[in-house]
């Protein structure tokens, strides 16, 4: 067996096990989501919470509260997650004690 064929055989034998589906740490998903929202908000307003709801994705309790406020779309497009304690907890703890339905940070938790 040549060196090359040994390593080719080894890589082929271990590829599936090596790349076996691993769960992404909750904290990492939370951080990346925050970074994505920050980038999106830098280049333009986020879709308003009313717009999100209209697209069929349910809102969390805080977003719902904003949605029913008598304010304009500009306010409803702000990145509220940025000031939410759920974000802070989810970015710092692997099993953050957040259980709000439809909160992305809660849904990222590997429970």
């Amino acid at each position, binding site marked *: *067996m*040549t*060196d090359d064929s*040994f*390593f*080719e*055989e*080894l*890589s082929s*034998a*271990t*590829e*599936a*096990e*090596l*790349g*076996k*589906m*691993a*769960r*992404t*740490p909750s904290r*990492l*998903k939370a*951080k*990346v*989501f925050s*970074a*994505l*929202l920050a*980038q*999106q*908000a830098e280049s*333009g*307003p*986020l*879709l308003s919470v009313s*717009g*999100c709801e209209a*697209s069929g*994705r*349910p*809102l969390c309790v805080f977003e719902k509260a904003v949605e029913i406020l008598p304010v304009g779309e500009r306010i409803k497009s702000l*990145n509220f*997650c940025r000031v939410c304690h759920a974000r802070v907890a989810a970015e710092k703890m692997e099993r953050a004690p957040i259980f709000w339905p*439809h909160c*992305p940070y809660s*849904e*990222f938790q590997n429970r």
Partner: protein
Amino acid sequence: MSRASHSSNEPGAAASASDDAALVAAVLQRDRKATAEFLSLHADSIYSYVRSRLIPRADLVDDVFQEVFLAAWQGLAGFRGASSLRSWLLGIARHKVEDYYRLKLREALPIETEEGDPLPLILEPELDQAVDLWRLTQKVQQILGTLPEAYSLALLWRYWENCSAAEMAAKTGRSEKAVERMLARAREQFKSRWKGE
């Protein structure tokens, strides 16, 4: 050509092209909920791939993972649906990993080819006797984790990403001979650890 297909049985693995297109359109509208769904659906396959390709640098996995998704957001408008969204993301991940390989190997490889230092003779590690797949993989991971970083990355690039020495040379701007020499030294060290020397 890389074998990084990493198909999975996680939710959304069978998402159709129309599902992908709808999700991409929603993310491009900066829909926060769609963005969370985009991340949730594809995080595990990207994370698994990046982790498997950066064995000697587990500390970098989080950063590269984040870079993949930020680059995806920046390039999402260019997603045409020619492949699945997952394959497209894995393509970005592959490029990010390769960027790191290129950087580290460029630093480690000499600019000029040295003469002498002949390639080592072929040895025969006893792969057939490897007990089971899990233990085999653990052993491979353990050895790759303890080799000098450039050697581990060179082996991963060459054999797990199926990149030829010529391609590695072209991508690092070094000679093929220099890449071959590094691979030979990497293989030699790997084999000696494999045999428990």
